[in-house]
């Protein structure tokens, strides 16, 4: 029968696609890690780059990436969570809600280079901060907010209504219900979402070229004066990240081992993304289990 033959062919085709994609990803990851293997050591991860000679590291860049990530999360989690709460618990169908939703969707598909340019105009030039950590963090916030909002909204919506009713029936105000019952119950989902998006923030480059800049002062970790340009606490210093550094090494690397540096940085970047992924899954599961008591 012809239809059975077609069915077989189709099944084979779908398996082939799946196998192809998995093999492709596996080889991509192994290639990147293999190329960067020689650089995956403490020295490379901690020492500053060198300009004309081989052996430079990615210390400041790695640190900047992490610091930028943290600042971005500090800004975008409260706002995104707030907006998510609003959309899930307060928003009534209507024009305003539609506009907020349209804004979220528009922002979430905004090309990151446009966000970078917007950041250049507003956070770099208008504020007078110049290329800086804070300008970069704000640009990343613009990129991250819609994702954060959506993650929070979805997780909050999936909290069963029976919990809200239980809380109201005990005489809670709406805000108490949200803060003490709904948000904690939504936490596993929110945290998983946050960590997964953290990977994206960590690897972003286009939005940072024009905001956090393409240079990094050599950081002095004993300098805790937030107005000194070499202090890690200074948020108006330029802060080249790892992803931006790959881009720059490739274009302007004077060091003879520029290729290896880019390979190593790419491997580090990939590893971080893998770690974020695994962490998100693990933490999400653990929190969920703790909450539901099946420990």
């Amino acid at each position, binding site marked *: 029968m012809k239809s059975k033959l077609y069915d077989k062919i189709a099944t084979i085709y779908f398996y082939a696609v799946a196998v192809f994609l998995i093999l492709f990803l596996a080889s991509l990851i192994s290639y990147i890690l293999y190329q960067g293997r020689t650089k995956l050591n403490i020295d490379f991860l901690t020492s500053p780059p060198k300009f004309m000679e081989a052996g430079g590291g990615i210390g400041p860049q790695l640190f900047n990436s992490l610091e930028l990530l943290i600042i971005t999360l500090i800004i975008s989690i409260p706002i995104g969570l707030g907006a998510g709460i609003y959309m899930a618990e307060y928003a009534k169908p209507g024009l305003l809600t539609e506009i907020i939703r349209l804004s979220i969707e528009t922002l979430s598909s905004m090309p990151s280079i446009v966000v970078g340019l917007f950041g250049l105009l507003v956070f770099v030039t208008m504020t007078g901060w110049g290329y800086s950590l804070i300008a970069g963090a704000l640009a990343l916030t613009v990129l991250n907010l819609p994702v954060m909002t959506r993650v929070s909204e979805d997780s909050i919506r999936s909290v*069963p209504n*029976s*919990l*809200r*009713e*239980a*809380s*109201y*029936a*005990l*005489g*809670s*105000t709406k805000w*108490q219900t949200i803060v*003490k*019952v709904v948000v*904690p*119950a939504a936490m596993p989902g929110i945290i998983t979402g946050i960590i997964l998006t953290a990977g994206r923030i960590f690897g972003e480059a286009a939005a940072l070229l024009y905001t956090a800049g393409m240079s990094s002062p050599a950081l002095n970790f004993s300098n805790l004066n937030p107005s000194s340009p070499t202090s890690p606490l200074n948020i108006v210093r330029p802060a080249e990240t790892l992803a931006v550094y790959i881009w720059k090494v490739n274009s302007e690397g004077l060091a003879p081992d520029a290729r290896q540096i880019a390979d190593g940085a790419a491997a580090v970047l990939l590893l971080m993304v893998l770690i974020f992924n695994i962490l998100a899954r693990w933490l999400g599961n653990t929190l969920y289990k*703790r*909450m*539901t*008591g*099946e*420990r």
Partner: protein
Amino acid sequence: MKKIQVKDLDLFYGDVQALKKINLDVEENSVLALIGPSGCGKSTFVRTLNRMNDLIEGVKISGTVLLDGQDIYKDVDVIELRKRVGMVFQKPNPFPMTVYDNVAYGPRIHGIKDKKKLNEIVEKSLMAAALWDEVKDRLSKSALSLSGGQQQRLCIARTLAIEPEVILMDEPTSALDPISTMKIEELINELKNKYTIIIVTHNMQQAGRVSDYTAFFLNGELIESGPTDRVFYNPKDKRTEDYITGRFG
């Protein structure tokens, strides 16, 4: 003494009338059972008594509900009201937190912070809900790790912790096994000395066992109400009789 007086209560979900001119009084420290076929408005009715229906959009209510003579839709603040009129739901719905925190939740949101006082309340409430012995060693375990029957008693303890005057129970045992059901029925029998209880049930025998008064609903109307024995063995309305003898529903 009349604890609750309901007068000419109408309730609409949008354009659909779910309650039609309900008039019903509830005696203090008694158990009132609400019976009737599915969809007749039992849940809707009990939810008007602590204004849980306020949370649903498009609900319109007219008529009056008096609690100790005060109009709950006019004279009483809704949060105050819900403190005085507690509720237990059909499906056990403990919060995803520890057993202790579940019971302490109510007192806490009403401003009690003193650790010792909270401990006291938790113990007293769990005792009153006949759960203390089973959970006293696992107060800091997640409430979701309890069995269904224990969860439901925890929900009752949680309600008792805010010291309500009235307790509404919407089919509190329908999701439970017979043994848990029995325990909760016993509990209700004890609680009625201190509380006014309104219980919705599908189970005729349960209504017979636990209640002092019974009200029969049909299609949003209150067909008949009165002392349980009278309603069961000497119904005034043909429809009540048909329902109780299992001819429909």
